[in-house]
């Protein structure tokens, strides 16, 4: 089982990103669940979302304690939340940033999701929407295929730019 | 008025009950293609006991607080089925002004196609005459043995604020007026509301044969004003129009009723002032200057 934890802020699309990843994994022929941990639903509050991907039906509902991968969609969250908490040894950290951050003992990647979203003008209520870029980036890491990622996006959205940002992220992510 | 009766012999109403009398006229006007919705009130008992019923249209008894909501469900379902069946609520003042006001407000606001008739005997009659929001200032009930210190809740203006296409007041002592208003209400689509004053011998403490007389005194003194408001336009109904040219003193209405016995002059004065104010407001509204 591969377990992902996504850190974001309300309004950025963290919950939707988790759902897109699960849908893409299912389109890859695998099993997956996605779920958020909800506090009160407020814009701007730190949000944690989870994805589990497996080759058998996922029966676990409790929160992910030891993720294989942590995705930090909002760098500011790191000031208030220990994003590395429980991350498996040798696990992966992806940050939404133009600059590389090193986290000792972990594989680290960075990608400027915000820049990609702004380039496509994907902004809702002042927030760049990052969810489709997230799954483009994860496709590059081989967690899901880019074909299924695009299928998932097409099933959930109608805006062409959503697929474009996933493609951009896939291209710009350096592995 | 049609001869056909929908309230049959064998009701268990108190002798002289004008609420049951009013129901007779309401159903005569509504006719056989009607469903009557009754929350907890005297009518729950008056209709008779299972397996018998003294009412010759379907009567759906519903939860105390739910008349408006139950009617919403019923009306929507019937309309979805393409049926024009009248949905008529017959509820007391407790079920309307107090515990049922939220459901009533919701049903009005949603534009439910139904008629809500509130028969107002100004207390909780089924449980033996406790004070309700409909009890007038100074009236004695079993829970206001010294007379109610607060004024009657103005349900009409609360309902009017929802701007239903049709609303009216009526009194069991004026059957023609009540009959006409029910007919009119049911001819208009959307929510309508009729507030019926229902003198109640045991509750108001007067002899059983005086119900009609008391009802007339209420109108003649201006305590109860018969009017209708169609699409916002108010019209005073003819019995009140005639009566108010030369109203009788309030004391003539209060005197036969034990519930007002020994009312103090200050309370009496407040009651009189409030009647005058209400009449002024209605007159102003009728002439369009409010």
């Amino acid at each position, binding site marked *: 089982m591969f377990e992902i934890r996504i850190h974001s802020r309300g309004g950025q699309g963290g919950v939707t990103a*988790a*759902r897109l990843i*699960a*849908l893409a994994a*299912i389109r890859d022929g695998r099993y*997956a*669940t*996605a*779920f*958020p*941990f*909800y506090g*009160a639903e407020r814009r701007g509050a730190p949000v944690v979302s989870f994805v589990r991907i497996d080759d058998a039906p*996922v*029966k*676990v*509902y*409790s929160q992910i*304690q030891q993720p294989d991968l942590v995705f930090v969609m909002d760098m500011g969250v790191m000031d208030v939340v220990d994003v590395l908490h429980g991350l498996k040894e040798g696990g992966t950290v992806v940050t939404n940033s133009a600059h590389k951050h090193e986290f000792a003992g972990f594989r680290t990647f960075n990608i400027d999701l915000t820049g990609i979203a702004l380039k496509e003008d994907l902004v809702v209520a002042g927030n760049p929407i990052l969810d489709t870029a997230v799954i483009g980036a994860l496709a590059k890491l081989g967690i899901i295929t880019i074909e299924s990622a695009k299928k998932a996006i097409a*099933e959930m959205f109608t805006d062409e730019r959503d697929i474009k940002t996933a493609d951009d992220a896939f291209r710009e992510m350096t592995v | 008025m049609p001869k056909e009766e929908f309230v049959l012999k064998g009701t268990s109403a108190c002798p002289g009950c004008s609420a049951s009398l009013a129901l007779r006229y309401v159903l005569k006007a509504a006719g*056989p*293609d009607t*469903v009557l919705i009754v929350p907890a009130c005297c009518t*729950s008992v008056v*209709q*008779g*006991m*299972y*397996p*018998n*019923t003294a*009412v010759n*249209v*379907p*009567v*759906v*008894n*519903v*939860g105390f*607080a*739910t008349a*408006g*909501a*139950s*009617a*919403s*469900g*019923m009306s*929507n*379902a*019937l*309309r*979805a*089925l393409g049926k024009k*069946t009248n949905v008529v609520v017959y509820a007391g003042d407790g079920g309307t002004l107090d515990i049922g006001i*939220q*459901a009533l407000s*919701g049903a009005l*606001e*949603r534009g439910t196609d139904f008629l809500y008739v509130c028969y107002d005997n100004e207390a909780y009659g089924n449980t033996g005459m406790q004070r309700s929001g409909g009890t007038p200032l100074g009236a004695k009930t079993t829970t206001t043995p010294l007379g109610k210190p607060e004024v009657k809740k103005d349900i009409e203006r609360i309902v009017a604020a929802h701007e239903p296409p049709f609303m009216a007041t009526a009194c069991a002592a004026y059957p023609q007026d009540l009959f006409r208003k029910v007919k009119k209400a049911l001819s208009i689509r959307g929510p309508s509301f009729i507030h019926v004053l229902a003198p109640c011998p045991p509750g108001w403490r007067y002899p059983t044969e005086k119900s009609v007389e008391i009802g007339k005194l209420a109108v003649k003194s201006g305590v109860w004003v018969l009017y209708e408001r169609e699409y916002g336009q108010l019209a005073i109904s003819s019995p009140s129009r005639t009566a108010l040219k030369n109203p009788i003193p309030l004391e003539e209405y209060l005197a036969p009723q034990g519930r007002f016995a020994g009312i103090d002059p200050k309370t009496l004065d407040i009651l009189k002032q409030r009647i005058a104010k209400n009449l002024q407001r209605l007159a102003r509204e009728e002439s369009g200057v409010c």
Partner: protein
Amino acid sequence: MLTVATGNKAVALAVKQAKPVVVAIYPITPQTEIVEQIAQYVSQGDLSARYIDVESEHSAMAACIGASMTGVRTFTATSSQGLLYMHEMTNWAAGARLPIVMANVNRAIGPGWNIWAEHTDAMQERDTGWLQVYVSTVQEAYDTTLMAFRIAEHNDVLLPVMVNLDGFLLSHVMQPLDTVEPADFIPPLHLPHTVDPKNPMGYGTLTGPDEYFKFRWDIERSMRDSLRVIEAAHKEFFQRFGRTYGFTEDYRCEDADVVVVSMGTLGKEVEVAVDNLRNEGIRAGSMRLRWFRPFPKLDLMNRDVVVIDRDYSFGFGGVLAHSIQAKNRTGVFSVIAGLGGQEVTYDDIAGFVKNRHIGREYWFGVSDNV
């Protein structure tokens, strides 16, 4: 068709396919997605139902009752405080023998305000005459909602059915969902006591003790009959759509020395614990109770029983644990866990099994030791 959905969306989708004529729902977290989704179906013309924007849950149930009396299919949904607020009317719905289907998204009860999963809300409805079923996956939420209409409306039942799904844990989790075409799996509703002006009758009139008593017995008789109807619905569902359901979902119970009984999403987590325990040489099994009313016969003879309650009856104990003790005349280890959305992992559950002490009650995270 294979798609994905949250538990809430799955319920809404099943409702759309069941084609109710009247839907009356009041929003409450974590159920709100259901009301929003159905409102959207109606506004887009995907569901040609009357959608009543009621002003409270009490009115939601009352509106469903009023509508149902005309013989049409009705649906509502709620959660927690909302369910408690409609409690008077849930009794009424069952007493009036109306086959209303309701989704209840299980949530804790205030104070303090807590929006997370707990079963105490539905437990407070257990004596109302509603059938109650608890589901554990998005697929099961969908399938069971479809079955609920068929079961409720069956002439031998004519009682309302409550489909329970865990708040957030299931309502907001996204999982694969294989949708079906229900077609005549849900036959048209024929309510024998439909209100009809051509045949005027009194409904819910004043009723004396002897007659009233018979009506109560009638409810119980239908409750008992519903066991057969539920079984038939499960069978028919399998034949048409290929998925198996029972009163319980049993996992590796045949040779188990210890069986964990639970309801809702916890039951799936238990299966993971069972696998891990078996790897350690402990012969464990999981019995996830689906139908809580009517309460089925459970095969729990000659083994240890651990019951996890996500509910509590103060001054008494875990409702499920005591129901099993009473019905099966067997001692159990009663674990109270997951109240207010408390995290309960498969490792925690394995711990309950290993440290079981039959006859005791254990509050997870509170009791010092077993």
